Structure formats: C-alpha cells, structure tokens
C-alpha cells in the first residue's frame, strides 16, 4: 500500500483544478470523469510533467512537490503510459523497452524477460514502432514503462485510441499488471466499462474537483453522482464466479443466484459484471 497525497491547485484560463486528497493506492485506482474534468492534468501533475500547479504532492513519504521545490519528472520513480504510446520512432521495440532500464531502488527489479512474457512481446522485439498496430504499440509502451522500474504506474487513457477488438485484446494484460508486478496503478479513463472491469477504487472528477471517491461498486451505485457517471449508463456492479462459458455467453454464480450474461470469460475465474 502506497500513499499518495495531493494538495494542489492549477488555474489556466477558464479552467481551474483543485484537488486535496489522500489516496491509499493498491491495485488499480481509476481517475474517472467526463472530458475536460481535469483527469489528465491531475495525472501530469503527479508525474511532474505539468509544472504550473501550486501546492504539494507526496508519494510514499517522499515530497515530489512542495512550495518552492519540485522533483523533476526523471527523478520521480514513475512509469507513464500515454494515450498515444509515444514510442521512439528511431529505435526498434527491444531498444524502446530497454530505454528506461533504471536500476531498481532496493526492491527486486522488474526483469526484461518477465515483461516480455507477460505482454507477449517476443514476436515484436525486432520491429520498428511504425510497423506496429495501435494495440501492439500500447503493449510495448506498457512494457517500456514497467521496465523503468517505477513505484507507481500512471496510465492516461491507454485504450482510447483503440477500436473495440484491440481493447478487448489489451484489457487482460492491464488487468494483471498490479498482481504481476506488485505495483499500484493510477488509471485515467472516461469509459465506465473500463472502470468497472479494471479498477478497485475510483476517484470521480468533474469540473476540476473531486466529486466522489470510494470502492468502484459503491460509487457507481450512487444516484447523486449520475450526472457525472452518466445517468443512462448507471448500473450496479456485481461480482461472482464464472461457472461455465461458451459461445460468448457465460453463467456467473452470485451468492444464491446465477446470472446469464453475454460475455467471453474463462470458467472458474472471479469476474465483475455491470
């Protein structure tokens, strides 16, 4: 469990962001909200890429920003997966992956082979980034961020530029990240499905302010947050075990009932469904 505490304010023209929160990060924490709510800006403040915000950012007891002093991005132990991948076009996939390769700070380093395995990157290693599909580029970008041995992984809508099929392809990889690499993830998205599928906690942003936070299931149920979560989209989240799945349908056992839903899933696996 790593603690991220934020007390920051940023004004830019008509947009104002003001966040004062103390977050216990474990697993995937979603930053969710409509476009223009300040999610990406908040992520950039945490990473140090946005330098105009005033206030303090502390991660795991380390001051990343306080008045008069800011640790530059390259000295914060973060990994950052951008919306648009941002692979280096002059390097092949393997050299992109090894670009960060920072020494681990005392903890066991994330190994090249385990990242290549976890993200199925082996067949891509010799290729140029421009020859990869969008989904492949994002897998490489995730691997590259992991190999920089971060203590916190920041992901900024990593699937927003992908079509539905590519999303389905990459979701399972992201889902496994926290467990596979023991690393908290802060995940920006405006897709409620991604929140439901991936995150355990959610921070709800609207108009530059935090309007709700808590366990994903609780936040999605709150009627007073419908304007932000999307009224028509509101629903509840149930968790159960997949009993059997075939032909795109699955039976999910809840406590006493069984729910049949159109879903591709693996039998015997726990799964959340909206």
């Amino acid at each position, binding site marked *: 469990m790593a603690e991220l505490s934020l007390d920051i304010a940023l004004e830019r023209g008509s947009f104002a962001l003001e966040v004062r929160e103390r977050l216990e990060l474990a697993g995937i924490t979603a930053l969710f909200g409509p476009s223009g709510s300040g999610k990406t800006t908040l992520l950039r403040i945490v990473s140090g890429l946005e330098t105009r915000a005033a206030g303090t950012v502390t991660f795991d007891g380390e001051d990343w920003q306080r008045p008069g002093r800011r640790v530059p991005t*390259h000295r914060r132990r973060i990994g950052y997966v*951008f919306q*648009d991948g*941002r692979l*280096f076009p002059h390097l092949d996939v393997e050299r992109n992956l090894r*670009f*960060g390769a920072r020494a681990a700070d005392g903890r066991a380093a994330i190994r090249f082979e385990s990242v290549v395995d976890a993200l199925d990157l082996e067949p891509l290693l010799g290729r*140029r980034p*421009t020859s990869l599909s969008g989904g492949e580029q994002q897998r490489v970008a995730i691997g590259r961020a992991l190999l920089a041995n971060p203590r916190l992984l920041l992901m900024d809508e990593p699937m927003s530029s992908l079509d539905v099929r590519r999303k389905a392809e990459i979701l399972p990889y992201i889902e496994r990240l926290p467990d596979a690499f023991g690393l908290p993830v802060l995940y920006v998205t405006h897709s409620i499905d991604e929140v439901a599928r991936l995150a355990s906690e959610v921070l709800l942003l609207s108009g530059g302010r935090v309007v709700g936070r808590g366990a994903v299931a609780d936040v999605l149920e709150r009627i007073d947050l419908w304007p932000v979560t999307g009224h028509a989209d509101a629903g509840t989240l149930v968790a159960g075990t997949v009993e059997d799945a075939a032909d795109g349908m699955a039976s999910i056992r809840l406590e006493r009932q069984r729910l049949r839903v159109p879903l591709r899933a693996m039998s015997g696996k726990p799964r959340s469904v909206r």
Partner: protein
Amino acid sequence: MGAIDLGPVWLSLKLASVTVLALLAIATPLAWWLAYTEKRWRVAVEAIAALPLVLPPTVLGFYLLVLLGPAGPIGRHWVALTDSALTFSFSGLVIASIVYSFPFAVQPLQGAFERIGRKPLEAAATLGASPLAAFFRVASPMALRGYVSAIVLVFAHTLGEFGVVLMVGGSIPGETRVVSIAIYEHVETLEYGQAHALSAGLLGFSFVVLLAVYVINRRARLGVGYAVG
C-alpha cells in the same frame, strides 16, 4: 598559364569544416531554445538570427571589420591575448563565416526540433532520462535530417562565400585566399584557364554534395527509421 594552385581549395575546405563544427555547437542550443521556449521575445531573437540571410555581405563585412579590427571592441582583446590581429587572418574568417552562415544552421535544426515536439521528450523524462540524456538519446537522433541539412547548407554556403571574405580577410595566400577569391583574381588577371578549373571544380563538388543529401533524405523518408524530422 601556370599550374593550378590548389592552396585556395584546401583553405576553403578547411574553413568550411571548421565553420560547420563551430556552428553545430553554437546553433544547437539556440535552435533548441527557439523551438521550445514560450517567451514572447523569442521572435526578436529569431529575427536577429535570420538577419544574415537578407543583409548584403558588404554590410556584414563592414560591421565585422569594425568589430574585429585591431582597435574594435572584439579585435582589441584578441590582439591583447594573441599579439596578432583578427582581421585578415584565418581566425577572423572563421568568425565571419559563423555569422554569415548562422541562419543556415539554426533554421533546419529549429525546424527539426519543432517537428519532434515535446511529446517524445516527456516520454523520455518519465523513463528516467535527464534533459541532457533525452537530448542525446531521443532528440538528436530524431533530428538527424535537420542535422544533415544544417551541415550541408553551412558547408556549401561557406564555400560560396565571397563578399564577406573579401572585406574581412582580403587575399593572403595560405591564410585568407579561399577559392572564390582566387577565382575572382584569376579573372581579373585574365587567367581564364585557372578560373575555369577552379570554377568547374566548385560546381561539380557542390552538385555531388547536394545530390548526396537529397539521396540520403529520400532514403530516410522512404525507410521506416526516421518518420519524424
């Protein structure tokens, strides 16, 4: 008609090479700053950096002569340090060439850095690369084509320099008598044979260099390696 004196040829090549190296070192940080700064007075700096493009070589040469002369604000200190004058010397020619070819180095580099943008540099920072490391590992290889353009343009422009050289350097064999000056003097003394040989050589050389650049640029554009820059 005597044998062709190759001295001016070597001097021109030496001057062009030294100017290229000096300008890469000087123009890179300025081009970088121009590409990424948000300061409003950057346009003023841009305009000053482009001045040598529009000024007649005689104007540049005149001011350089005033600045570099033994009594001038720069030349004076040079005399105190080295006991020799900057004007009518090879060192003076190098300084004049740097000023004269300045925009030919700054503009391609600035353009290349602007095309790269901040995004790859941000990515490098999140991967632990310091700004300097990001420059050497990301920005400069991505700006390769900008560098090739800058090198070739500065080299060729320095070879073709005439007016500024004449005013600042004169025509001292082995010191300031470069190819363009030698050709001018051959013509003045009606030694057309020698003027032809040097002119044809310069023409052929310039063509080959430019051809090489266009071929390299075309390969780079067709290849997958340098999609940006």
